[in-house]
């Protein structure tokens, strides 16, 4: 029975979707901004996985090319994001995402 199981494209895609959802959950529920960033990274990785899966399924190089750029973007984003966090934390050590809510209304 198990032998009959073939790993199809959908398996990868669904895995990616779940990963994406987990990442989104992290953004919605975690208060530590660093963990929120990590969750965003999870989401990006989910997308990367999707790209690669499609790339394989289509026998097309475009998807892998895209992943390459996503990686670069993610790296740059992390640098800037961590920079911002450093700037904030320096002023308010230990602040959570919820603490940073002076602007509202």
């Amino acid at each position, binding site marked *: 029975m198990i032998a009959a*199981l*073939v*790993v*199809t494209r959908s*398996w*990868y895609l*669904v*895995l990616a*979707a*779940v*990963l*994406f*959802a*987990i*990442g989104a*959950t*992290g953004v*919605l529920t*975690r208060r*530590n901004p*660093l*963990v929120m960033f*990590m*969750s965003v*990274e*999870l989401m990006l*990785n989910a997308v990367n*996985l999707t790209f*690669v899966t*499609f*790339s*394989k399924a*289509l*026998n*097309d*190089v*475009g998807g*892998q*090319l895209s*992943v*390459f*750029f996503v*990686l*670069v*973007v*993610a*790296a*740059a984003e*992390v*640098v*800037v994001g*961590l*920079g911002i*966090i*450093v700037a904030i*934390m*320096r002023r308010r*050590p*230990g602040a959570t995402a*919820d603490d940073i809510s002076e602007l509202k209304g």
Partner: protein
Amino acid sequence: MSVELVVFVLTAAIILSGAVGVIVAKNPVHSALMLVMTLFGIAVLFIQQDAHFLAAVQVIVYAGAIVVLFLFVIMLLGVDQAEDLRTEPLGSQRPIAAVMITGLLGLLIAALVAHSGAIGVPSLNGALKNGTSDSNIEVLARALFTDGVFAFELTSVLLVIAVVGAVVLSRKPKRAASKASGKAAS
């Protein structure tokens, strides 16, 4: 039971447990480590799907650089204290999140799985592999420097921004002030 299935199931388990670990670990350091686990898992799946170069980059850039950067910042700021995950200060955030995420996931899966055969026109950007070679680095490189050359060059701007941004953001405000006042004094 094919090898592929075994690999997929194992990796998927690693990926998902890593991902869940990221969002449930109280300590950000643990989260970062869990993230590494997921990233490795994804690298495995990359290999599984003929993306050897990307798998390497994934490990080097992501696990090697990005996560280290995370850890570095955590240590720098000393924000490694545990977060109390049992309480949620924003009252209805979790139920809402649950509904949203369930919906999102459901719809995504619905879109991805329905008519599972339907997929785009193959090899529009060129085939994944050139000849019989196991690696596709060459194909990827060719694509990168033809079709993707503009985006590739553009990433340079991105990196410049990242550099400038890091410089600006990590500069201590006091310094800027003292510099200005010094200038005014002279």
